[in-house]
């Protein structure tokens, strides 16, 4: 739709308009939810519904403020907290001489690490996009003939209040907030070839995830790199192939 309105748009501007539209949509949704409960309370003449609305209103205010700030950040091209995954991937890709497009808005690069072949996948920056990492990983693994010994995913994750921003946690499975087609695409290809999946996450609040990347998150990127290197050395053998996926919005982060 954006391209039909202006076919000469460069990809960077296109991605910024796309993300602005997403932010406006999120703000509109908050407005509609609040309005829904307000009208419902009036229609049913229910003070209890009004009480419920008053109780959750501060949370919605916080979300609305965060989205409002996020739009300005995206338009300036500043990396956001959710860009942690692409930042880690870009630090690996710096050493890669061979980079190629694997799916829409998604790029991969290969490099050698301690006798192993490392294929790093991330969204194509510095555009404000999350790319299509699911399809990208699927294509990379099919290209390798399924001979991949491990998939490591890195992403930002929402913290609970009281938890410290920038703390790292590890788990199994795909680190991806979106339960949509991208996550299942990685899981399907992993099941098809019996590839174990590791997840490394860095914790932050929702506001920190969609606004300017905080110093704690930026500093956590180097720790995540060491963490990923340790996982590779401990859990894979020399000569094997590992796929590393930096999940998240790559606004302001190239490769």
């Amino acid at each position, binding site marked *: 739709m954006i391209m039909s309105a202006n076919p000469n748009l460069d990809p960077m501007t296109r991605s910024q308009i796309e993300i602005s539209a997403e932010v406006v949509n999120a703000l509109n949704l908050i407005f509609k939810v609040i309005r829904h409960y307000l009208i419902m309370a009036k229609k049913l003449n229910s003070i209890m519904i009004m009480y419920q609305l008053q109780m959750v*209103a*501060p949370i919605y*205010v*916080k979300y609305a*403020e*965060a989205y409002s*700030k996020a739009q300005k950040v995206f338009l*300036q*091209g*500043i*990396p956001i907290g959710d860009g942690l995954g692409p*930042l880690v991937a*870009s630090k690996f890709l*710096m050493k890669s001489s061979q980079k190629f497009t694997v799916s829409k808005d998604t790029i991969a690069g290969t490099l050698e690490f301690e006798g192993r072949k490392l294929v790093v996948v991330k969204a194509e*920056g*510095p555009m404000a996009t999350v790319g299509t990492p699911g399809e990208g990983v699927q294509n990379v693994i099919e290209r390798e003939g399924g001979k991949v010994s491990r998939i490591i995913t890195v992403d930002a994750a929402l913290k609970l209040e009281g938890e410290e921003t920038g703390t790292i946690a590890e788990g199994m499975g795909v680190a991806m907030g979106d339960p949509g087609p991208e996550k299942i695409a990685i899981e399907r290809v992993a099941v098809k070839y019996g590839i174990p999946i590791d997840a490394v996450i860095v914790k932050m*609040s929702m*506001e920190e995830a969609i*606004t*300017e*990347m*905080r*110093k704690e*998150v*930026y500093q956590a*990127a180097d720790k995540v790199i060491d963490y990923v290197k340790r996982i590779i050395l401990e859990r894979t053998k020399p000569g094997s192939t590992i796929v590393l996926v930096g999940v998240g919005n790559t606004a*302001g*982060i*190239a*490769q």
Partner: protein
Amino acid sequence: MAISADSKQALKVKTVVKCMQCDYTQERDFQVGDFVLKLVGNCPKDNGPLYIAGIYAETLNQKK
């Protein structure tokens, strides 16, 4: 209405510039057009290529 304290924090966005060949590091204010891994000139120490290693935001006023 309770407005979150987090949202009221003033943030300063910084750009970290590093040399690809030596340990030279410089921090400056973010400028529109900066992005991570952008090449931004030559190193004053060894003339190696300088690149943007990171962009992050720092809190100016401390949380109470």
